[in-house]
């Protein structure tokens, strides 16, 4: 049985699977199957399979689709949007999928669009992904020529047009309502929810926004069925996932593995373990907006609820490793600068809180920290927590700060008591050696 549905077409060469190779390998079989089904049956199937959103939130994909109004009274125009604005620090999975197997995404989009009744779909891709955008545009043209999408798909009156929208570098566009504003030609700031996009989204019409990897799961799920899909997972969650590791490991990279693969296995077997001379101190399980986990949590399986119960989030599933020669305060400062810069400025805790946090972290890292700074950081992080801000950017920014203050409290304290960064010399030495 197929165990690597997301990456089976991705070979060692750096070329994309063209439509010929894609179809020879069973491509667009899921799409043909979907066209024989009713949209309601497809939605039910995806829901039952337990596919959860791979952008980080982990919401049941079929359930999300089911919120789109159906029936005669429902708005005739609906949209599907693929969120390809991959910009979460430490995340490099969607780039791989789009650059190397663009048709898998297009097939997933065709099925999703058919299920929700959307005849127009957008791929909202970050502007820096030039190669991925070009390969997707080429793939759309190929699929149109072979009448897999477009105005005249055989045996159906369903039509589908897919357009690549190139963004231009703005993290907040990954937030789905900010993304919709950006697509409409507005400044990218988040919208109030409700109404949720499934009811009133792009230009006020029902809209589903799904992540690249989520949509790439759909074709084989349709082709091979719910039981096959559920059995791919090793623990609670269904399917496979592109996991990744970056930082000072021997073999950084990305691998498609079953959901529920333990963190230790990903780091030690696939990433080759830590490089000589450095030890693992902690890790961000799924990007810069997830809480740090410690070395005693390596046996946790990478499942949404398990990582959630452990006090973090699986996020994008691409792991960033903090080693024992890298300053945790410095890393948290680096992340906070990113979030401060990318805050859209719409609401106060985020717009004002993040630069304040950066100022405090800068003086701690410099050795000018003041008594009470750690409490101040804790308080600020709490004020940016869930429920206090318009969107998830600020709570995401607070995650590495609040968890670092727990896991690496001694490092923060040492900065204060020594009046300097204890890692400064060490970092330089390792940098030269590595």
């Amino acid at each position: 049985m197929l165990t690597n549905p997301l990456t089976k077409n991705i070979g060692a060469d750096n070329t994309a699977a063209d439509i010929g190779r894609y179809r020879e390998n069973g491509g667009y079989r899921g799409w043909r199957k979907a066209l024989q089904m009713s949209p309601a049956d497809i939605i039910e199937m995806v829901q039952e399979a337990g596919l959860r959103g791979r952008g980080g939130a982990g919401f049941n994909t079929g359930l999300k689709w089911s919120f789109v109004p159906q029936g005669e009274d429902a708005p005739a125009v609906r949209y599907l949007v693929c969120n390809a604005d991959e910009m979460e620090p430490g995340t490099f999975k969607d780039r791989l999928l789009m650059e190397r197997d663009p048709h898998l995404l297009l097939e997933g989009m065709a099925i999703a669009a058919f299920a929700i009744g959307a005849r127009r779909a957008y791929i909202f891709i970050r502007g820096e992904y030039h190669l991925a955008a070009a390969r997707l545009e080429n793939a759309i043209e190929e699929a149109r020529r072979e009448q897999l999408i477009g105005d005249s798909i055989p045996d159906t009156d369903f039509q589908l047009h897919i357009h690549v929208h190139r963004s231009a570098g703005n993290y907040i566009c990954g937030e789905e309502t900010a993304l919709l504003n950006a697509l409409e030609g507005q400044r990218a700031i988040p919208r109030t929810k409700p109404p949720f996009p499934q009811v009133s989204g792009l230009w006020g019409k029902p809209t589903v926004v799904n992540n690249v990897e989520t949509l790439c799961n759909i074709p084989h799920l349709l082709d091979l069925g719910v039981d096959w899909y559920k059995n791919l997972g090793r623990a609670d969650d269904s399917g496979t996932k592109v996991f990744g590791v970056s930082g000072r490991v021997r073999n950084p990279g990305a691998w498609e593995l079953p959901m529920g693969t333990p963190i230790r296995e990903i780091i030690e077997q696939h990433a080759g373990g830590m490089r000589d001379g450095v030890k693992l101190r902690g890790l961000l399980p799924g990007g810069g907006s997830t809480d740090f986990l410690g070395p005693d949590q390596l046996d946790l399986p990478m499942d949404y609820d398990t990582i959630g119960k452990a006090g973090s989030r699986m996020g994008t599933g691409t792991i960033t490793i903090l080693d024992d020669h890298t300053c945790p305060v410095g890393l948290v400062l680096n992340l906070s600068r990113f979030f401060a810069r990318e805050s859209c400025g719409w609401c106060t805790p985020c717009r004002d809180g993040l630069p304040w946090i950066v100022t405090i972290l800068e003086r701690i890292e410099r050795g000018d920290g003041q008594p009470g700074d750690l409490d101040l950081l804790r308080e600020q992080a709490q004020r940016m927590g869930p429920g206090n801000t318009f969107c998830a950017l600020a709570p995401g920014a607070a995650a590495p700060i609040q968890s670092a203050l727990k896991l690496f409290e001694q490092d923060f304290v040492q900065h204060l008591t020594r009046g300097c960064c204890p890692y400064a010399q060490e970092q330089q030495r390792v940098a030269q050696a590595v």
Partner: protein
Amino acid sequence: MSSTTAADTIEVMEHDDTCPRIGGSKLTAEEKREIDREFAYYEDKGSVGLEALRLVQRHRGWISDETLYAISDYLGISPTQLESIATCYQMIFRQPVGQEVLFLCKSSSCWIMGCERLQHHLQQKLQIAPGETTSDGMFTLLETPCLGDCDKAPVMMVGEEMHRHLTEEKLDELILEKKSHNVDQSAD
């Protein structure tokens, strides 16, 4: 949004008589044709602001106030709305940039793998701070958020190409190569 330094020096539109509203730069026929092609994909003309900025910037290198007015006129949206879009994005330039824009990734994985050291090296070599352009107009250095190539850190994007597993030596080679390439081109 571009880097903090660039944001500080970003040009502010002036609303007085010297405002470059009329004359100046009209869009060329080719620029209009390219923008027109985008209309088919969106509900209304006003929605293609970013596409228009990106397409015109490809011809002109950056978006001056005159260009911003010309585009907003063409799309039938207010210049302030277009400016609110333009200033959202780090890849839309509201001031002139060099022939080569160096997007140095500053996010977590690249930071762990030594991007600060590379930045220091680049700044020394080119004698510019982030957001600035070399005096010969060749290079602009921008700090950029995660470029999504973290397993090959540290990385930098130059124009449309990615440069991976960077070291000081590789940066030196890259700068040399770009310099000679651009000198050759201007000699042609």
